[in-house]
């Protein structure tokens, strides 16, 4: 019961921080001089992008964990983080497109960072498709773990592309102190949400696996006596 209250408190705190962040962005934070109000997309766009990387890193760590220990809980964690990484990456791409249209006049351009970001989204969508297409649980976990390792290679490419290659994205952004504070505050609800979503999805994956095992055991127990009876 105490645990349930803690979970409810966690989600309430996240909701309050989320609303607080939006109020802070629209009422307190000054407008950027060159881009105007459209720059305010940045305060959610960047935290969601950072959390996408973190979710991908969880997939990577869990994939390594599975390959080393062969424990199914690593596989459940990797699958949960990949699911949430796709949701977060979709948010980054969509908000980025809206910002691009307002600031640069185009919805999309094949610049290195945008291309690698789109690739990242595709890689984790394919990861989920691969998972759903393999029937055997052991083989699915193994194939997914290897795929999870390879897919993570795109994360440093997204991060470094705007710094090392000529890109439409600025390499570094100069922010006023109020803007930095708002950005820091916006990191809180987005990180809480991402972590909460991964934990909830992980619990669901674990429950599903337990149910499946239970069903298999029941099936074996139900079938065995019938077969024995038949042979007698």
């Amino acid at each position: 019961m105490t645990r349930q209250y803690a979970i409810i408190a966690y989600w309430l705190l996240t909701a309050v921080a989320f609303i607080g962040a939006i109020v802070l962005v629209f009422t307190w934070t000054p407008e950027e001089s060159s881009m105007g109000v459209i720059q305010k997309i940045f305060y959610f766009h960047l935290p969601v992008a950072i959390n996408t990387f973190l979710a991908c890193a969880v997939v990577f760590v869990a994939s390594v964990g599975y390959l080393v220990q062969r424990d199914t809980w690593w596989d459940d964690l990797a699958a949960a983080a990949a699911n949430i990484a796709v949701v977060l990456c979709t948010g980054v791409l969509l908000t980025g497109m809206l910002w691009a249209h307002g600031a640069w006049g185009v919805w999309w351009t094949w610049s290195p960072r945008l291309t690698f970001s789109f690739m990242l989204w595709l890689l984790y969508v394919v990861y989920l498709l691969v998972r759903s297409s393999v029937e055997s649980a052991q083989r699915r976990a193994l194939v997914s773990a290897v795929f999870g390792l390879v897919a993570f290679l795109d994360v440093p490419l997204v991060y470094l592309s705007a710094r090392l290659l000529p890109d439409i994205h600025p390499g570094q952004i100069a922010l006023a102190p109020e803007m930095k504070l708002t950005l820091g505050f916006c990191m809180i609800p987005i990180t809480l949400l991402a972590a909460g979503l991964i934990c909830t999805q992980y619990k669901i994956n674990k429950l599903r696996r337990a149910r499946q095992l239970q069903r298999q055991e029941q099936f074996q127990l139900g079938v065995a006596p019938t077969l024995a009876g038949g042979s007698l």
Partner: protein
Amino acid sequence: MNPFVATCVAYGIIALLLWGTAAKLFVESWNLRR
């Protein structure tokens, strides 16, 4: 598109995506526990 509207749409997309996923997961978890 009006820049203010575009900004509001961006925040709406993030809110819908993240809280929508949370709602979907809560329902799924509830159904599995029943």
